């Protein structure tokens, strides 16, 4: 099986890497939207995640990859098996990163009647879809701006509730589907509806780096990887391991971290200064700042954390005319300086 390019060896693109790592610390931040041109390491970063993230315990034989310690949040199958007196065993698996290709049918995504069993055995059974596979991991949609709106809607719904409810062809199934949606796309090839934009936790704009040295470094590493994937990956294993430990520590620390009232107030002010509707912006700000503080092993969430995360958390929520060319990042930056003071 081909090995993936290691996460730690990606040159630059700090904002994107940070956003992805923070969702590993706290998946409830919500999805990440990555906008940028081709060849900017978007797919590489996402596909590096299974090797980077801490492995997870999975109930053996569970079709939805349930967490053995999740108690009530496990799927009905697991609960039924336990109720029947079975002692559930578990294995260690890499965090799933599932690709959702454009043109995937709704059946394929949410799951559908298992044709094979229906027709050969006359049984009415459910065949899980991509959402089941992505449970507890990442669902990656390249060119999400070209995905049909009703599918994007569906994905964001499931991602928000953490549950996939299937009612079709006489099947009635619900199963846990907690995943982080990562969407990427090139805005020049189509826009995402504003209603959908708002529902991503963080957004990132990636550009090809114009710094020549950085570009040379990208090519050098890529060339080294192409020539000897295993050797190159081994060389970066320590760096990946360090990031993994940082994530594990941050996850533990998250629970103790308190967000002071002053930060809550500042977040609210920031949102009203840029004019975002609803509470999604504030939630993303707070969760993002808290995950960042935990990742940095800070004692408390500070204004600096808020400032760092502000652009990613807010830039895609601004109300603007579709024809307005003024960059959203600039407007958020201005508001940050106004409300939080200069860095």
């Amino acid at each position: 099986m081909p090995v993936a390019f290691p996460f730690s060896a990606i040159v630059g693109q700090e904002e994107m890497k940070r956003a992805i790592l923070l969702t590993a610390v706290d998946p409830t931040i919500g999805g990440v939207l990555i906008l940028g041109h081709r060849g900017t390491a978007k797919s590489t970063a996402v596909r590096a995640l299974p090797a980077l993230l801490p492995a997870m315990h999975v109930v053996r034989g569970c079709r939805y990859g349930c967490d053995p310690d999740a108690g009530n949040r496990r799927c009905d199958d697991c609960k039924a098996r336990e109720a029947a007196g079975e002692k559930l065993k578990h294995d260690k698996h890499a965090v799933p990163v599932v690709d959702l290709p454009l043109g995937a049918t709704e059946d394929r995504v949410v799951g559908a009647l298992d044709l094979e069993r229906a027709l050969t055995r006359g049984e009415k059974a459910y065949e899980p879809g991509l959402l089941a596979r992505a449970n507890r991991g990442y669902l990656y949609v390249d060119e999400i701006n070209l995905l049909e709106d009703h599918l994007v809607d569906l994905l964001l719904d499931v991602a928000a509730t953490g549950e996939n409810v299937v009612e079709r062809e006489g099947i009635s199934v619900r199963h846990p589907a907690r995943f982080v949606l990562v969407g990427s796309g090139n805005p020049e090839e189509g826009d995402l509806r504003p209603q959908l934009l708002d529902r991503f936790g963080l957004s990132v704009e990636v550009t090809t780096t114009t710094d020549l040295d950085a570009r040379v470094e990208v090519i050098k590493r890529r060339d080294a990887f192409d020539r000897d994937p295993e050797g190159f990956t081994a060389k970066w294993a320590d760096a990946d391991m360090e990031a993994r430990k940082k994530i594990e520590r941050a996850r533990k620390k998250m629970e103790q971290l308190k967000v002071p009232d002053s930060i809550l107030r500042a977040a609210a002010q920031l949102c009203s200064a840029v004019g975002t509707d609803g509470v999604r912006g504030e939630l993303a700000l707070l969760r993002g700042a808290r995950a960042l503080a935990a990742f940095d092993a800070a004692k408390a969430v500070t204004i600096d954390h808020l400032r760092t995360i502000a652009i990613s958390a807010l830039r895609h929520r601004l109300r603007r005319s579709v024809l307005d060319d003024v960059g959203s990042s600039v407007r958020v930056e201005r508001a940050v300086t106004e409300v939080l003071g200069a860095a």
Partner: protein
Amino acid sequence: MEGNASTPELATLDLPTRIELSAALLALDPWGLGGAVIRAPRHDLAEAFVARVAALLPVGTPMRRLPLSIPDDRLLGGLDLAMTLALGRPVAERGLLATLDGGVLVVPAAERVGAGLAARLTQMMDTGTVPSRAPGARDLATARVCLLAVDEADVDEEPVHPALADRLTFRVDLDASPLIELFRADDIAAALRMLPEVSVSDVNLATLVSTADMFGVESLRAVRAAVRVARGCAALDGRRVVEAQDLATAAALVLGPRATRLPAPPAEPENSAEEPPPPPPSDEQQDNSDDAEDTDVRELEERIIEAMQATLPMGLSIEPPKRAPKSGSATGRSGADRSGGVRGRQVGTRRGDPRGGGRLDLVETLRAAAPWQPIRRAAAAHRAEAGTSPAAPRVLIQVRPDDFRVRKLFEPAGTTAIFVVDASGSSAVNRMAEAKGAVELLLAESYARRDEVGLIAFRGAQAEILLQPTRAIAAAKRALAALPGGGGTPLASAIDRAVELTMRARREGNDTVVVFLTDARANVARDGSGGREAAMRDALQSAKVLRAMEGTTLLIDTSPRASQLAQDVAAAMGARYVALPRTDARSIHAAVIGAR
């Protein structure tokens, strides 16, 4: 140049040599290079190139063609429905990509590959695996397949999907001249043994990166591909170290066709007065070329640039650098294949394979299977007795693939709005600002309705498609803002372009609305010559073609007072005529909305 006798003089990179080199390199490193986009004036020429690659590949390398309508189960692997039903137990079949691992897939009519198929192929190219749908297969199957994409598009049709094209290393533009043969399969085999040992110095890597930068090649994927090509060239030449000629060849084959601008002239201030200012990133090049006092490096760069001359895109060597090269390729190819009809309201059932995206109608399927049950049971019993097949399992009802009924769904088609804006002298004076304002309002509305928007402008000798139908409104706005005014009124040519876009939109299953903003004072004929009479005759002729397409058409007369001329043209093209003697953007907008 040293090297063994069989290798060509790589410095003379004429077209036949480049084509042969591309074939050799593909045969040497098929998976690493991803593949090629092949364009040819005739189909048999493309086939000849494919055959040439096949001849150079190691014996036994699998090669197949991709049927564009391939269902996921066949492409990625899944359930063999016919066998499953016949045997009464699940039978998995491997997908085309997995069976081709290490081989080559020929993609005919690659410009027709929609976003869905392209996404599946790019996923394979990025990860070297495919997600199988075969029963019980949670795992991925290894699939490292080289794609030879034959682009059969007409010049003005949409090119191969950009996500796919970006990952295919070569652009092979064939002409009618015969292929030459510089390599033998043995050479490739020898180079293959050499390839893992070939090294590239850091200076040489940096040179390729800066060359890409100079020519405005943004995607680092292209540079990475160029590095692999350079290594392949060295291996073909029997060397373990990449040298200058390899870099030149790699740049010519990979970077040249992707260039979006020419390098800024090396700091000669007197030149800058007549040349337009170079785009922003060139600052760094200036610094860079200052730093690079080292004459070796400079010589190397000159050599590379010289080699690239032949492969630069047409027009690039004459035109000043373009700001937004991407907007041209920002086509409105719809996100998911709309023809699938996998959503919407059910209007009936049809025979079909439920795995192709259709939703199975179970009741209708069983109803279709019902009349055949006695015959099928008897046949199965007979076969079991004769011992030609294992005893059939106790199946309640025997279903064959032919019985499948899927739901026929009705999906409202999307709309493509095509704006045809008269930017000629007569119109421009008063109306350009209003026209632009109106189109902007319509764009905003189209955005809300998720329509696609295309833009045609006409002035001077010919009409020009400024924007292929797209949903990227920002691109539309930019194209509009940059629209200059003045010159003749080539109305016939404008109508022809509108017909062209209408036909294309229809092919994708969209409805069309064509909106003309013009005073219809045609004075340039279709062939570009002047003269009102000929111009008008051509315009009325073209108008009839548009009328035959039976779409919604609207002509907004922008002349100072309602003109008979414009009314005649509107009548000929079957358009609603709206006279707007004195008006603003909002009333034009209102008129268009009213026409729908």
